[in-house]
C-alpha cells in the first residue's frame, strides 16, 4: 500500500521524517523479499550485516557495493521471469553491470519515472527532441544504459525527433523543421550531458536558434565536461545565452536503479523522489555523515524487486546541502554529486612493462 502512497502523493512533497517512515516500511519488506528469493543477498546480509532485520532507520538497512553487479549476476526471480537485462555502458575496458528485470520491476520503473517527469513536464506528452542517434535502440532485448534511459524517457514525448545521425553529427535542417512546427510551444529535449554539450550545443552556438520554449532534461555524469573545465553553472549559462533555453534539469541515476532518478530542482540541487533517498557515508568508516560533509553516496529505492538493488553503496562522492529547506519548494534532501571517488594508486610490485605496453 505504501509504495502506492509514495507514488500518488506529489513528488518532492514529503517532509523527510514522514517520508523516511513510509519508505522504511517499504524497504523492510523489500529486504525480506530479497533475503527469501536471492541466495546471494541472504548470504551477504547475514555475513556483512549480521542478519539484522529490525531496522530503526533507513541507514540501518544492509547495502551492497554497486560494483558487485559487475562480477555477479544477482536475481530475485527465476530465469523464466526475466523480461529484460540492462547493461551499464561503462567506459572501454570496464566490465559492465548486469541488471535483470521482470515485468513487475520494469513497470514500476516506468511508473516511477513518469511520476518524476510529470512533475516538471506536466501531464501532456510534449513534442520531443532526442539528442541521440536512432541506431541506439534497435535491439530490444538487451539494453545498454544509454538505450534504457532513452527508451524510458521516450514515453514522455511524442513526434520523436533524433537530432543526431549515426556519426553523431547534428541534423540541423531537420532540427529547424522540427522547431518550425513545434518551437513556439513547450517541447522536450533529452540527452546525455556530454552529447548535449559536445554534439548539440557546440554545433548550435554559431547558429541563430530559438529553444526558449524547450525543457531540457539531461544526465549521465559530468566527468567528461569536468575534463574540459565546464561547470554545471557554465553549462546552464552558455546554453541559455546561445539558445534561450531556460528550463534545464540535470538528473543523477544509474542502471542499477533505473526509474528512481534524482532530478535537479530550480535551485540547482538534486532531490530524491518520494520512493527513493540518498545517504552519505564516510568511505572509510562507512558511518553516515551529516549534511555538509562529503562522502560516498548510498542510494535506496523502493522499486527493485527482481534483483537486490534496493540499497546500494555507489562509488560516487556527494554531499547533502539541506533537508526540507529548499528555495524551490521541494522537501527532503537537497544534494549534489561530486563525481567518482578519485582512484589512488597503491604501491607494490606491479606489472611495470606490461602495463606500459598494453
Amino acid at each position, binding site marked *: 500500500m505504501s509504495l502506492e502512497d509514495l507514488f500518488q502523493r506529489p513528488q518532492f512533497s514529503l517532509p523527510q521524517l514522514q517520508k523516511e517512515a513510509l519508505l522504511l516500511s517499504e524497504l523492510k519488506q523489500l529486504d525480506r523479499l530479497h533475503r527469501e528469493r536471492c541466495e546471494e543477498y541472504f548470504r551477504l546480509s547475514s555475513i556483512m550485516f549480521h542478519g539484522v532485520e529490525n531496522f530503526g532507520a533507513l541507514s540501518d538497512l544492509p547495502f551492497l557495493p554497486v560494483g558487485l553487479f559487475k562480477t*555477479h549476476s544477482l536475481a530475485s526471480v527465476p530465469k523464466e521471469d526475466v523480461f529484460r537485462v540492462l547493461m551499464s555502458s561503462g567506459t572501454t575496458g570496464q566490465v559492465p553491470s548486469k541488471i535483470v528485470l521482470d515485468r513487475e520491476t520494469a513497470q514500476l520503473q516506468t511508473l516511477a519515472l513518469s511520476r518524476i517527469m510529470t512533475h516538471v513536464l506536466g501531464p501532456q506528452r510534449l513534442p520531443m527532441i532526442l539528442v541521440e542517434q536512432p541506431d541506439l535502440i534497435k535491439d530490444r532485448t538487451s539494453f545498454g544504459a544509454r538505450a534504457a534511459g532513452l527508451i524510458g524517457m521516450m514515453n514522455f514525448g511524442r513526434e520523436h525527433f533524433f537530432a543526431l545521425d549515426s556519426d553523431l553529427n547534428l541534423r540541423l535542417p531537420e532540427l529547424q523543421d522540427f522547431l518550425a512546427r513545434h518551437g513556439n510551444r513547450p517541447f522536450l529535449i533529452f540527452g546525455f550531458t556530454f552529447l548535449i554539450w559536445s554534439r548539440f550545443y557546440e554545433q548550435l552556438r554559431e547558429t541563430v536558434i530559438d529553444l526558449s520554449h524547450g525543457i531540457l532534461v539531461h544526465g549521465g555524469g559530468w566527468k567528461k565536461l569536468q575534463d574540459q573545465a565546464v561547470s554545471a553553472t557554465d553549462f546552464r549559462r552558455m546554453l541559455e545565452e546561445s539558445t534561450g533555453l531556460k528550463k534545464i534539469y540535470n538528473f543523477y541515476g544509474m542502471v542499477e536503479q533505473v526509474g528512481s532518478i534524482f532530478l535537479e530542482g530550480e535551485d540547482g540541487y538534486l532531490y530524491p523522489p518520494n520512493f527513493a533517498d540518498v545517504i552519505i557515508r564516510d568511505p572509510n568508516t562507512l558511518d553516515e555523515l551529516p549534511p555538509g560533509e562529503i562522502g*560516498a553516496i548510498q542510494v535506496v529505492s523502493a522499486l527493485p524487486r527482481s534483483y537486490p538493488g534496493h540499497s546500494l553503496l555507489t562509488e560516487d562522492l556527494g554531499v547533502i546541502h539541506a533537508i526540507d529547506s529548499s528555495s524551490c519548494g521541494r522537501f527532503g534532501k537537497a544534494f549534489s554529486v561530486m563525481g567518482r*571517488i578519485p582512484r589512488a594508486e597503491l604501491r607494490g*610490485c606491479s606489472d*611495470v612493462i*606490461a602495463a606500459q605496453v598494453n
Partner: protein
Amino acid sequence: MDVELLFPNKGATDLETVLKTVASCSTARPFDESMLAACADLSRRIMQDAEARRYPALMALAFWIRKAELIRLHEEFANLDRPDRILVPSGTVFHLPPRNVDTMFVYSWLLSALVGNKSIIRLSPQRSDSTNLLLRLFRDALAAAEEPARNSTVIVSYGHESAITFALTAYSDLRVIWGGDNTINEVRRASLPSHGREVIFPDRYSMAAVNINSYLALSPEERDRLADLFFNDVFWFDQLACSSPQLVAWCGEGTQARIASSDFFTRVCACARRRHYLTSAANSMQKLTFAASAILDMCVESWQRFPELTILSLATLSDFNRSHPGGGFVFEVAVNSLAGLVPSLVRKDQTLTTFGFDDTELISLVRQLNGKAIDRIVPIGQALQFGRFWDGYDLLRAFCREVYVNNSPIKTMA
C-alpha cells in the same frame, strides 16, 4: 628511439650510445674493495640525507647495505668458495626492477654488483619521489667511487620501446626480471644469447602462520609488539609487495582461534591508527566490493571490518583463489597444526611469516611440502626484509658462474 641515460652520464640519448656505454664498463673481482666502499658510501649518504629519513623503506635499505652487513655478506660469499669450485661474475646483468617498490633496483643491483658483474638497470620514466631521491644518492655515491666500481653500472630509463629491451637483452649474460607475470611474459619475447640465463621473480602470494597457544601466552605488551611487526609486513607497501602476508593461518585448537584472532587484529588496527595509516577512499570502496565478491565466491564464514583493515574468515582453503585487493585486507583460517596447511599450499606461495613454532615444526613443514610451495620462512616482522635467499634462489650464487677446477692427477691403472 627514446632512451634516457641516468648514469654514468645524464640526458636523452640513443640505443647505440647506451650500448657503447655498456661496452666501456668492466667486470670486477667479487667483493672488490672499490665496490664495498661504494656501497658503504651509499648507505651513509642515505642515512645522512634529511629527505631520505622520511622514507622508512630507504632507511631499511641503508641499514641493509651498511658496512657491517657488507662484511658479513663478504664472509658468507667467501664460505661458498671450495678448492675445486670458484665463483666468478656472470658478466653483464640486465636488471628490470619493479616500479613500485622504490628500493628494489638497489637490492637487485647490489648483490649482482658485489660479486663483480657489470650492471644495466632499466627504470621506468614514471618514478616516485623516493625513487628519484634514491637515484640521486646512488649516482652521487657511484660517481665518487674508485675504479672499477665507478665504471660498473649503466642506468637507463625508457617506456614502451620493446626494441630497447630486445637490444639490451641480446647483450646480457643474465637477465633479472621482477614480475608480475605479465611483465615476465612480455620481456621474455626478447631472447637472450644462447648462453644467457635468467633470474625471475613472478607474482607471488604470502601468508602468516601463528601458533595460537604461543600467542595467547604472550603478555599484552608482547602482543602489541607482534601486532606492530605484523603491521610493518602488511602496510609498508600497501600490502602489494609479493612477500606481504594476505592470509593468516591460526594453528592450534579451533575454539581458541577466534579469541586470538579478535585480540590480535584489534591490536593491529590500533597500531595502524597510532601510525596514522589511512587508505584512500577509493581503496576502501574497492576493499568493500572485493569483500562482498569474496563472500559469494569462497567459503567465508564471517567478516570483521575496521576502517584500516578488513578480515574475512574462511572455513577452509579448498576454494581459496588467492586474489587480493591490497591496502589492508586479510583472509584468515584456522587449522589444527602447521602441517594442516600442506594440502592447501601451492607453487605461487612464497613467504611464510611465523610466530610461535619451534625449528623442527618449520623444517618438517618444508620437508613435507618437498618443493611444491614456500621459498622462505621468516619471523613475523621480516616479511619485507630482502636477503640473498629469495624466491628459491641463493642470489649470491645465482649471479655468479661456478668454475670447477680439478687438478688431481689421473690415476693410472695399476
